[in-house]
């Protein structure tokens, strides 16, 4: 005798929860510090059905599954070690990715090819080469790919509002104070614990021995965390820098542009070196420019570690872009998944933004100024700089 076909009340929905057919089915890849926060935001939405987690660490994987099962009161959340198994599930509409940065491009491109929409933690790219490939994958398959800096729109109102309103005039320069690039890692080998798939944690990164300080997910960038090291992160420059550069570039309305050049200024007079980007419209973005060198400007706005300098002649303004939907940047993403609109931090805008810090890192490393050819996505006349467009990639993980 066939079992009766049962439709649950959860599947049908109610006054506050849409029916299952109208919910966006989501899985999370990389479910540690930032991933758990992203998971919480999506899990709290009535228009999302969260069905799977993936992490190479057992404890984070188990915790992530536990949060989902606890929310829904069942044991249904699937848990994967290998992201490819999660992407192979056809019931999943979208994924959020919060792995270390060296996985971002490969996973995003794979998700697009699988027909998934993607919410990707910042910094979206680890290298300059990755960005165009990620944009191409998103555009090719018509995917919604949102970058994941919630601070860009929300934390820098003090500079965004007067810049977009035109009250301080035409913006000429921006100063950003944030830490520098990542560093090499030479930590010793330690016995690999059984609760991590080390080979999969490394993935495309060069092989290095396990050490807990190499892969710790804490937010420090001075050593003892993956955010500190060259193979997995751009350091503070791209980690917090994704927020600061994101806010500054948004305030200056430069998100559609990429820098035309980067100037390296050697250490001088007791002050360390600093670097300046120049955008095609003439706006300069300085990284850690020593305070005494800052020229007086008629109008200066401060947003934490960012200062914008304008000419002080009021001009016609325009409205500040806003998130779509409800619920901040997460709501923006979900709304765009439904409507197929471009999200606030569309992957192309995110890539443009991150191009600046990546260029800065290369200028610091080579200790010289460089010119960027956006159409070719290469530095002009500098072979060594072009050799730094990408990191080493370990087989079989290819872009």
């Amino acid at each position: 005798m066939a079992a009766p076909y049962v439709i649950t009340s959860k599947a049908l929905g109610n006054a506050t929860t849409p029916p299952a057919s109208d919910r966006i089915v989501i899985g999370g890849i990389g479910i540690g510090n930032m991933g758990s926060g992203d998971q919480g935001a999506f899990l709290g939405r009535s228009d999302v059905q969260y069905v799977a987690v993936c992490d190479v660490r057992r404890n984070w994987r188990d915790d992530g599954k536990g949060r989902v099962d606890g929310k829904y009161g069942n044991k249904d959340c699937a848990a994967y070690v290998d992201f490819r198994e999660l992407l192979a599930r056809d019931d999943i509409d979208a994924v959020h990715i919060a792995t270390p940065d060296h996985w971002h491009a490969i996973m995003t491109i794979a998700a697009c090819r699988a027909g998934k929409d993607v919410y990707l933690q910042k910094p979206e790219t680890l290298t300059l080469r990755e960005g165009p490939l990620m944009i191409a994958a998103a555009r090719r398959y018509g995917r919604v790919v949102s970058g994941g800096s919630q601070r860009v729109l929300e934390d820098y109102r003090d500079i965004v509002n007067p810049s977009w309103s035109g009250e301080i005039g035409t913006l000429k320069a921006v100063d950003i104070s944030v830490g520098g690039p990542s560093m090499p890692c030479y930590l010793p080998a330690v016995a690999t614990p059984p609760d991590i798939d080390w080979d999969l944690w490394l993935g495309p990164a060069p092989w290095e021995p396990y050490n807990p300080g190499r892969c710790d997910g804490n937010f420090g960038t001075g050593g003892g965390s993956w955010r500190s090291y060259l193979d997995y992160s751009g350091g503070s420059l791209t980690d917090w820098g994704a927020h600061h550069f994101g806010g500054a570039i948004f305030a200056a309305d430069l998100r559609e542009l990429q820098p035309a050049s980067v100037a390296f200024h050697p250490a001088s007079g007791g002050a360390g070196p600093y670097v300046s980007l120049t955008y095609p419209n003439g706006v300069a973005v300085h990284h850690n420019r020593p305070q005494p060198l800052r020229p007086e400007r008629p109008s200066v706005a401060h947003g934490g570690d960012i200062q914008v300098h304008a000419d002080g002649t009021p001009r016609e303004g325009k409205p500040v872009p806003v998130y779509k939907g409800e619920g901040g940047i997460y709501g923006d993403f979900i709304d765009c998944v439904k409507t197929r609109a471009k999200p606030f931090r569309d992957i192309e805008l995110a890539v443009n933004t991150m191009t600046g810090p990546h260029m800065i890192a290369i200028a610091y490393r080579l200790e010289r100024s460089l010119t960027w050819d956006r159409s070719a996505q290469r530095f002009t006349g500098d072979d060594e700089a072009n050799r730094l467009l990408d990191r080493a990639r370990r087989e079989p993980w290819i872009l």
Partner: protein
Amino acid sequence: MAFDLNSLDAPFIALAGFDWGADADFFKSIDAAAVAAHGDASLRGELEKRFGALLAGSTSRATKEYVCRKLAMIGTAVSVPALAALLTDADNSHMARFALERIDLPEAAAALRKALGVVEGSLKIGMISSLASRGDLQSVAAISNLLGGDATIAAAAAAALGTLSTPEAAAALAAAKPAGDMAAAVVDARLACAEAFLAKGDRKAAKAIYSSISASIGDAPKTHRERAVRVAAKRGLLAAAE
């Protein structure tokens, strides 16, 4: 001011005996020399000579990895033989490849092509990827021949042909008989070829690919991937018709 080569003697001795966990402060001197070698052929040559000796010697994996990182930035044809010798070494192949991929000289391409015919498994995927990243059109035929073999290697070959996007690569992809996961790789590569043809103004070639993919998917795609491919093909057809 000329770089003081004598100042590198002690750091290079330390590098020869280095392993993970050892004091790495001496790297700063060598890093600085590599940066200073920009426009200084003499210094670059001296560094390459010393690096090459370390690659050929019985040094640790950590030492070889560091050397490959430096040669990725400053290596020339002089370093190709020492790097090429590591391509068949499972531990060091990816770092040697990293350096060779960036040496924009025929000697480096030839070394990667030669290794492609020798190595197997994941290492072969590495060679395929590096040759594609270099835009090495001479490897199209060899890579095309891999479409019919092991599925994982065939998927990497398909991706590489999509990157290279020549008419020959597109023809090989069209003739492929993909199965399983490789099917998605072949379709993606064919879409990449079509985009490249469109960018070059060859609408006819692009349209042919988009039409073929569109027909293969049909009007009732069943999965997310099939729907996304259909979107790609339909958009491509519109672009090719404009």
